């Protein structure tokens, strides 16, 4: 018995174990409720099924949450991502809708470049407010959160811009190798961010700035530059997500696109094990967190939970997720159990700690 527990420890001790378990449990519950939940079939050469939907729909959230992870790791927060989604989507769709040939790749590429550029400028604006002027992140980005919706609606003139552009649509709905393109894009972005932070020293530097900004400064880190940078990255991620959200329905809605995605993104980051106080961050955890949130939403729809109770359901699940993850909660739980069976931890640990 002890041996099994011991062998499992490296797994259960991993910081992604609990979020992953939660995800598995949620999927299992869905499958029990509706056995076809996990069914995936090939339709028109594409994979089709609820799991694929979840992956595809969580792609924008994953993107936004990736940027948010870095921002939060520096001890900040970015409330403007939802508005940035709307702005970038609106600019791209506006350009395409005005172009003579909405189907030509060059039109779409220019549109993407324009929108992406605008998002970078706005990200830089956030960065300047936080890193240079020193405004508290939540307020600095609140400005753009409020004004950004206005900008997005200004771009669309309050209407929903509907476009009919194959290449643009593909960002949200296209497939590559039977997989939704959106999933691949999110995956690529995640790998890119992971490579940039973990293959270079960027991750360490970000964590250090978030962990203790003054100590980092005295160790020779250009903290401001890093802080500035993460807001730009966050904006870039938000822009990509904005493209997906709008491409998904082939229309840009300045008001609804990316609405409240900032809360979901923050939730995803925190569920993934990154502390809002800054410091250590976990990209894998964030991705898992985003999947959990999307699965939760899909569950509400799939189980046909009434709109009246769906928020209650969400509240309960969020609390449950956080509780199983909280070490303090598990410690309490375990202590109660240890009375029955002796904890296997002690004897095993002893050997490795006594210094030779």
């Amino acid at each position, binding site marked *: 018995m002890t041996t099994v527990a011991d062998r499992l420890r490296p797994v259960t001790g991993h910081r992604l174990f609990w979020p992953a378990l939660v995800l598995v449990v949620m999927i299992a519950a869905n499958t029990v409720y509706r056995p076809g939940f996990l069914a995936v079939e090939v339709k028109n050469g594409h994979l089709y099924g609820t799991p694929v939907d979840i992956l595809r729909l969580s792609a924008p959230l994953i993107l936004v949450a990736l940027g948010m992870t870095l921002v939060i790791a520096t001890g900040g927060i970015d409330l403007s991502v939802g508005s940035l989604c709307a702005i970038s989507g609106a600019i791209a769709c506006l350009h395409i809708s005005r172009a003579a040939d909405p189907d030509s790749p060059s039109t779409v590429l220019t549109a993407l470049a324009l929108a992406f550029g605008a998002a970078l400028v706005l990200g830089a604006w956030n960065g300047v407010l936080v890193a240079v002027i020193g405004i508290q992140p939540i307020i600095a980005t609140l400005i753009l959160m409020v004004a950004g919706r206005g900008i997005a609606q200004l771009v669309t003139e309050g209407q929903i811009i509907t476009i009919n552009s194959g290449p643009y649509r593909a960002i949200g709905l296209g497939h590559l190798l039977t997989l939704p393109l959106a999933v691949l894009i999110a995956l690529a972005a995640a790998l890119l961010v992971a490579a940039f932070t973990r293959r270079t*020293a960027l991750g360490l530097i970000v964590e*250090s700035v978030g962990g203790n900004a003054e100590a980092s400064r*005295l*160790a020779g880190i250009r903290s401001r530059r890093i802080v500035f940078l993460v807001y730009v990255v966050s904006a870039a991620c938000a822009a990509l997500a904005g493209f997906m959200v709008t491409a998904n329905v082939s229309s840009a809605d300045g008001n609804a696109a990316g609405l409240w995605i900032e809360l979901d993104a923050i939730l995803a980051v925190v569920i993934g094990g990154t502390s809002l106080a800054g410091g250590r961050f976990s990209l894998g955890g964030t991705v898992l967190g985003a999947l959990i949130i999307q699965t939760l939403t899909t569950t509400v729809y799939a189980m046909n939970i009434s709109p009246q109770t769906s928020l209650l359901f969400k509240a309960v699940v969020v609390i449950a997720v956080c509780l199983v993850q909280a070490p303090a909660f598990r410690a309490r739980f375990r202590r109660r159990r240890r009375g029955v069976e002796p904890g296997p931890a002690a004897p095993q640990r002893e050997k490795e700690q006594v210094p030779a």
Partner: protein
Amino acid sequence: MGTGERPVLTMTGISKTFPGVRALHDVDFRLFPGEVHALMGENGAGKSTLIKVLTGVYGTDAGVVTLNGEQVSFSGPMQAAAAGVSTVYQEVNLCTNLSVAENVFIGREPRRLGAVRWGEMRRRARELLARLDLDLDVTAQLGTYSLAVQQMVAIARAIDVRARVLILDEPTSSLDAGEVAQLFRIMRQLRDEGIAILFVTHFLDQVYGIADRITVLRNGTLVGEYRTEELPQFSLVEKMIGQELDVLERLDEQQKRATVAPAGTDPLVDAVELGRRGAVAPFSLRIEAGEVVGLAGLLGSGRTEVARLLFGADRADHGQVRLDGGRSPLRTPVQAIEQGIGFCSENRRAEGIVPELSVRENMILAMQAARGWLRPVPRRRQDELVRRYVEALSIRPANPELPVRNLSGGNQQKVLLARWLITEPRLLILDEPTRGIDVGAKAEIQKLVVQLSDGGMAVLFISAELEEVLRLSHRVAVMRDREMVAQLTNDDSLDADRVMRTIASGTPREEVTR
């Protein structure tokens, strides 16, 4: 001494395990009323843990604590304080956002009808601090004062309580001789009133100056309890480190540093009329390669400010720093590091460690910053460097992947030191590098400074311990009231007495040697 009486406090069979570390194993400890009891041990021996277990910060795995013969198990410092156990924890644990007066009294403010009496509180705070010879603006935020002052405030807070047990975990590590004397006077007074005092320090002479009894811990286990007069200094050290090392001999063998200022046309660092309004008056200071310059002065005399200006941590509004005779602007830490300057801050918690990061990451941080984010230090190189310094500075536990927050205070200090040694700087500014470090390690660090300077590294050495400064420095710059009043060559004629006199007396500017 009240040894005839019953102990006011006993701890028996205390064990405490942190994930991966057994901090305490079956430790016994007792404390009698009216005695000063020193708790000794190397860095990481478990002293602070024992104290935290006692006051309920940590739960125990096993063991019994009794207070006045009754078994107690505090759920936290609040309960402990209520039961008459007053504690100053290692590292200043106060709220820097509150005023000095509040830090002294919060939790037991004078009140009338439930309302805090601010005036009364300030008055009493002022009185209490005056007992410690401190004249502060008690309405100012605590954070505006230096660490040493904060430490004194923490002590003031602890001695005000009508406690039966007073616990002081390394209270003297950032104090200078005068402050220590003041503190000891009060400790004796309290002892004579029958209060039991538990005292942790790494200064052996302080132990022999005040303690009645000594308990020694090693690696989380109890070595023994001794009467001070029955335990000679060298056997105390042997018991602490568990080997028959002749550390003390080695300490003594260190000679007065040679006075030869290495010849060179241009000094390595040449600060010209460097100053910052409100912090330190303009001063000039040259440091040659391979030279150790000590900074002496009383608490708050501006030593830290000098160091920060040289490093660019604060921006100078007067004068400039020249390196290698050239005129390179030095305005930020980044530039300083590029020029080969390292700065080990005295305030390791606020300005030093990044608590969440591992020992390894903390160590390579400065090196990594200097290389830029695009060129990560290869993992193998990291491991090699980290292993070398963990060994050289005997950092314990020797697991580099532990979050540095879990290390004992002294070991954190060593990690910081390693961070700068790894960058192989040309000038290393050490602000209180030996604070909270045990005898053995301190000797190692001193040896290291000598070695490094022999190897051509310049060192600016700041320490509250004058002996240490004198032992290591080629020259000693003396600070008083935020002004550099003298630079003395450390030749045979220089001793602690003369430095103290320079600090105390008039304006011996003429003594300045260049």
